[in-house]
């Protein structure tokens, strides 16, 4: 049942040109950065004389692409997530799901999954693009896997938060702006507390937890953080929709 909802969400994303256009534009942006990364690699490395200055091509290009991906998706995910529930509220299609034999949990997880699968297409594409470096070089697949995992968890967290904000209002634009602001604050939170490395507030930052993945390290503490983040916002969404049924 969860998959049927996810399927419906995916279908509605690709029913209009929007889904395709967003995918194409994002691919274009990532492709450009990939190309720039490869070009810059030769320039920078020919200037680097000491061995300590030299880095592998995977890390050099990967850093550019994954860095820009996490930043661009900060804008793209709210755009995609904003309509998940608020659009249904606005066009009054919520009763269609509520009167089907589905629990609210299934509806929420299904919608979340639909968006995550859509974003997963991008992650797979980026990984494939970077793997093409392997044709003329010997690349570090571990680094790509760690980054992909990190990006996937990051985007899933974005989606969960976006889904929650989407459930609060019947105006998709309002939901989009709210989730963008919330995500932006969560992303740069660690910059504000950079002076104090033990600060608890900095620990809440999404970017801080993405950093270790970006360095090629899969840390269970960070995985736990992302999973808790996702569960928290999905639970809030479920509670919000349940309140609809109770309060009307």
């Amino acid at each position, binding site marked *: *049942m969860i998959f049927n909802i996810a399927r419906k969400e995916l*279908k509605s994303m690709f029913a209009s040109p929007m889904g395709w256009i967003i995918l194409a534009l994002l691919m274009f942006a990532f492709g450009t950065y990939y190309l720039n990364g490869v070009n810059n690699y030769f320039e920078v490395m020919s200037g680097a004389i000491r061995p300590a200055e030299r880095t592998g091509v995977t890390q050099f290009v990967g850093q550019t692409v994954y860095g820009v991906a996490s930043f661009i998706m900060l804008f793209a995910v709210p755009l995609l997530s904003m309509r998940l529930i608020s659009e249904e509220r606005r066009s009054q299609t919520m*009763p269609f799901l509520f009167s*089907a034999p589905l629990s609210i949990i299934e509806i929420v997880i299904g919608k979340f999954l639909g968006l995550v699968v859509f974003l997963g297409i991008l992650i797979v594409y980026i990984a494939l693009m970077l793997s093409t470096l392997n044709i003329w070089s010997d690349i570090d697949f571990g680094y790509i896997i760690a980054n992909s995992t990190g990006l996937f968890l990051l985007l899933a967290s974005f989606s969960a938060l976006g889904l929650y904000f989407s459930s609060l209002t019947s105006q998709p634009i309002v939901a989009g702006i709210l989730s963008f602001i919330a995500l932006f604050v969560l992303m740069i939170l660690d910059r504000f507390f950079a002076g104090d490395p033990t600060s608890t507030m900095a620990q809440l930052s999404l970017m801080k937890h993405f950093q270790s993945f970006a360095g090629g390290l899969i840390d269970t503490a960070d995985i736990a953080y992302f999973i808790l983040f996702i569960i928290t916002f999905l639970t809030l969404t479920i509670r919000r929709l349940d309140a609809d049924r109770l309060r009307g």
Partner: protein
Amino acid sequence: MDNLTVEAIELTRLYGGRAAVSDVSFQLTKGQVLGFLGPNGAGKSTTMKMLTGNLAPSAGSVKICGIDMMENPKEAKALIGYLPEMRPLYKEFTVDEYLTIAARLHKVSSKNIKKAVENAKERCGLTHMSKRLIENLSNGYQQRVGIAQAIIHSPMVVILDEPTVGLDPIQIRDIRALIKEIGQEHSVIVSTHILPEVEMVCDHVQIIDKGKLVFNGGIDVLKRQRIGNKLLIGFKNKPTAQDLLAIDGVAEVESVDDMIRVRFIEDANPNASIVEASVKNGWGLYQIAPDQTSLEDVFVQLTYHEAEAV
């Protein structure tokens, strides 16, 4: 009783202390079409939302074929097809895509989906619209898609909230026929404020006003109330009231415009004697007919009295 499909027990719904629906209880058996009547804001839609599990009742419970909506919502919802007042259509899909999604969400097994979609389209007259985007359909066709969505999994209970709003007369006739057809195998609850519609399609009527059930009974009961025991008679030369009261069975005489309304004693049929008297005395009778209070009157009476009592 295994025939009981819908059972509402003392349904109450409060909105901030104000009762939108209070103490509504009724039962529906298989093969019945229930008409749900009431003025605007009487609580029709709220009751329907509670029946379909879209809204939790503040008190009371709903049972669908014996399954409690609160305790086993999934099982109960599987037995219901619901068309809310606002059609829940995803306009970016085609009719086929939308109905396929509806069938899938209502747990129609994957090998039967195609058949279910075809069947629903055929019953709602949508076969030639399969590949059209719902967005581009006319209002009436969108309404049909809404109904098709509600019957796609051939549920035990079909609940339609104002299904004929915004349709042209021919479509209304089609949809009424459809409701009757569905009503033969399943139970149907239809809400409306068009009274003749109730007379045509329903065999059971409920009138709700200000959240309270004011009438609950068969359509024949309502009709009997409607025909009553009055005659409307037109004379060229009006006789006096005394003349008429002298006729056997006449209980009351009242002048209306240039006609005379006669109330007679129950079961006495003074028609023949009135005609005879008219011929004998040269009153010039040109019309005699049972005076039907329209359904509207009955409706107003029922809801108006209630308003006074409150």
